[in-house]
């Protein structure tokens, strides 16, 4: 099974990288771009056919390692 995981900054947490990109886009002439937010996207393969188990496992990975839940939130899909 393949897991596709998004880790993004929580609302209200400053995103200096997003800001810098917004600024750069602006100077490239993309003037109307706003609210740029940058997060992580991860893919991984799971050797697990039981969907529920896979779900529990990926959730555990996110909670423990992949996201820092103080500032980040995560969501994932399984395929």
């Amino acid at each position, binding site marked *: 099974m393949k897991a596709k995981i998004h880790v993004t900054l929580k609302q209200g947490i400053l995103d200096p*990288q997003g800001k810098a990109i917004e600024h750069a886009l602006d100077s490239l002439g993309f003037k109307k771009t706003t609210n740029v937010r940058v997060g992580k996207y991860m893919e991984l393969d799971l050797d697990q056919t039981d969907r529920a188990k896979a779900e529990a496992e990926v959730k555990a990975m996110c909670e423990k390692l992949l996201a820092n839940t103080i500032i980040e939130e995560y969501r994932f899909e399984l395929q």
Partner: protein
Amino acid sequence: MNIGVVVFPGSNCDHDCEYVFKAVLGQDVTMVWHKETSVAGLDAVILPGGFSYGDYLRTGAIARFSPVMHAVKGFAFEGGLVLGICNGFQILLEAGLLPGVMLRNKSLHFICQDIFVRVENGATPFTSACRPGQVLKIPIAHADGSYYTDPVTLAGLQANAQVIFRYCDAEGRVTPEANPNGSLDNIAGIRNAQGNVLGMMPHPERCAESVLGNEDGQLILASMVEFLKKRLPKMVGA
């Protein structure tokens, strides 16, 4: 004293810490491999700077799961002195031994330069040799040093005098211009509630010798050694 310096894969200030405690402060140093499961026999534990696990994913995120971290937590819980410098600070945060997180520097660049910090609390095992309010010149070298935490936690840190160092200018003024990385409340170093765990972004081990042109860092490291000597009177002179 026997000072333990933890070596994670990717630590790169481990030798510097070893050198300063041994050659400058005359203490015994034990290098502790990250796969060790015990830190028994150590008087203090240093988590050195560097790029543990390449700082991949998030700084300190992977290192916190090293087997040794379990032992370090136990050591800290029992009151052992733990100092995390730079990457070590980041690991302490990820491991939950100190509250908060490190964000990318506001410039988004790695910054290596001398900065100034003000000693906000001189009554700790790490700062007893400093005057309260003393300004130390000390280098930083990091890309992720912008300290962040939620307002409640911040208020708690402030109320309990857990903010130990703040970025300031040469005259000790804590200003936004003196903040090199965008850190919340100019925070450069904090300790835990019990007071035995300190995390700091600046590198005291890089400024503890006259040949390097700056000895301010010795105040911090020597404070620790003094504290340990007092705490373990039976070991003094042994």
